[in-house]
């Protein structure tokens, strides 16, 4: 049952990501991205990482996409800078990416023989939130703090960069 749900969610995510990439209008892309993020969150839920799923929805689908929308609004409809032909670029990109997929996918084959390969269910009964919290404040205390520094830095930077000088 869960396997089917995961499968369907994956399918949705992948298809919408393809659409997001090929969509002509940026706004449409953003809509598809919303679907992607939601689909991802769905996968998280199925994998019983509810906390992450929620965060995913809040941060990505909620905050981040809004920022993108704002940016889009701020920038406005942008004329194409130069008519650079992208055909060659596209062909090469697709070929390379296909090779990339092939390489990695062939490596995944080995996972099929692992014992837990189809085990979608959580490994422990204990709440993962508390476990995460414990780890965050113990093993990963430093990264946790540093992540905050990163955010601070990004805030200051964005402020500094995007601010129009008063003069």
């Amino acid at each position, binding site marked *: 049952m869960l396997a089917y749900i995961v499968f369907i969610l994956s399918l949705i995510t992948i298809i919408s990501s393809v659409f997001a990439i090929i969509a002509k209008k940026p706004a449409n892309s953003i809509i598809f991205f919303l679907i992607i993020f939601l689909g991802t969150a769905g996968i998280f839920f199925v994998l019983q990482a509810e906390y992450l799923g929620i965060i995913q929805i809040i941060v990505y689908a909620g905050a981040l996409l809004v920022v993108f929308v704002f940016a889009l609004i701020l920038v406005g409809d942008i004329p194409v800078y130069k008519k*650079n032909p992208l055909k060659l*670029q596209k062909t*090469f*990109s697709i070929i*390379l*990416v296909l*090779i*990339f997929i092939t*390489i990695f996918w062939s*490596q995944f084959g080995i996972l099929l023989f692992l014992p837990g390969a189809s085990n979608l269910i959580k490994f422990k009964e204990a709440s993962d939130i508390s476990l995460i919290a414990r780890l965050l404040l113990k093993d990963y205390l430093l990264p946790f703090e540093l992540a905050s520094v990163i955010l601070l830095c990004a805030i200051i930077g964005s402020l500094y960069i995007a601010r129009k000088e008063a003069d």
Partner: protein
Amino acid sequence: MECLSHPALVLLFPLTGILWNTFFGFKFKKYAGYIASGMIFLSFLISTILFFHHSQSNVVWTKDLYTWIRVGNLDISISFLIDPLSIVMLLVVTSVSLVVHIYSIGYMKEDEGFVRFFIYLNLFVLSMLLLVSANNFLMMFIGWECVGLCSYLLIGFWYKERAPVFAGKKAFIVNRIGDFGFLCGIILIFLNFGVLDFITVSQHVNNINPVIITVICFLLFLGCIGKSAQIPLYIWLPDAMEGPTPVSALIHAATMVTAGVYLVARCNFLFGLSPCAMNLVAITGVLTAFFSATIAITNTDMKRILAYSTISQLGYMFFACGIGAYSAGIFHLATHAFFKGLLFLAAGSVMHSLSGELNIFKMGNLSKYTPYTFWTFIIAGLAISGFPGLSGFFSKDKILISAFSSGKYLLWLSGLFTAYITAFYIFRMIMLIFFTTERFDREKRQHTHESPYIMTIPLIILALLSIIAGYIPIPEYLSRVLPEPSFVLPSSTKHLLELLSVVVCLAGIVTAFLIYQKNIISSSRIKQKFLKLYTLLFNKYYVDEFYDELIVKPVNRFSLEFKNKIDDLLIDGLFVNGSGLVIKLTGLLTNLMQTGYIRHYVLFILAGMIIILVIIL
């Protein structure tokens, strides 16, 4: 006496002369010539002392001065070898030089390079004395090269003109070709004998492979060929006549050019072991004697005729050495030094009186104006022609007799024929200069005069020497050190041969007399008859042109090509600058990859990643 008999003293005086004239000569310009001559006179005195001293004790002396080079077993001293051979050479050299020095005081009086001239002359004498008194090959080589240097400097004495400088260069380079052989020979001697001094080498000579000895002899003989202007390297000597005439007399007739003969004589212990080399020496000598004599027949330049004659006479000397008659060779060397020196000096006197005229067809009847010159010239001419009673007769005859007795009749015959030609061309010259009609310009006649005493007295001295030198028992004296050919002729044959050569000599003189003085045989008719031969002879067998085409030009062209194609283009252009260029161009290529587009960069990165992944996974 004892203290004065050190051979180094012989060298010391010219050296003093050089130093004095170099540093103070320009202040006391007038005395430069006297000082130089005085120094040579002192050298001459010392040589004489040496001679007497030595003839009393009658052994081979060696005197070490100091060690020059000592590297391992290569141990070379500056040391002197005094034996009859070197004493003869010392005496000949110092005496002729002395005369030439005195003569030059008059001859070079007006020249602005007066002091320089005497510096060079002294330097030359110094080197020549070094050469002949050396106790080992390498020291001899010093003298050998230094006389070449002096020759170069003196030929190019009038350095403002193009021709003398060019001739000097030619002389030096041709000499260097010979020196190259000599040097190689010396090194081979050292490698095989382990020593370089003559005495030790001569003692060990039997232990060495004859093939090596032959090679060494060939190489040494190459040196002789260069220095003594033998075929095929004689071409520099005629050109060397660009130098002042005293120089031609001293260097290019009397002394330096005979160094080759001296070397062969000195190395008789080597040559004696190599019949092959001996034959080569003899054949080269005869050929040279013959060919250069033929060239002299048609030449019109007084000094060049003498030059070819010198070459020819040198050929005789080699011929003598080649058949083993070393003492005859050296004897001829000595007599030749006197009469050829005299010829040149007299020729200089002629030039002096005709303000530098050289073409014998523009002279004539000079006997009227320049009696001393005339008579001395005649004496010298007779001497060289082998007129009986004069020195040339004795020495030349000795050579021819030795040749006959050695059984090489063909060589002997050509030697004899050459003697005829010699007599002919010398008297052709004498006729044209001193007899016949006056053919020189009118205004020159006003100045035509006999040379001053300072020039004529040397002529007279030399004339005397040319006469009496034949009576000095030089060969006997030399036979103490030089081997004599073993074969003896019955005295009747000997007299017959002597008679034959007298006849030949007279025939030559008479022929010249008939053609040029009496015009009984018209020279132009002969010219017409043998036009091809005449042109060939007149152009000196085209040897200069031949060398020019075969060696000089190819070397020049090759050097130029090598410089342009190999050095500049291939090595510098292609390899050095080319690699730089390739790197620069590749750099442009890598710069092209920096397109500035982010998507390109990502694409490149992705491609690189994929390539690595494909290879590794």
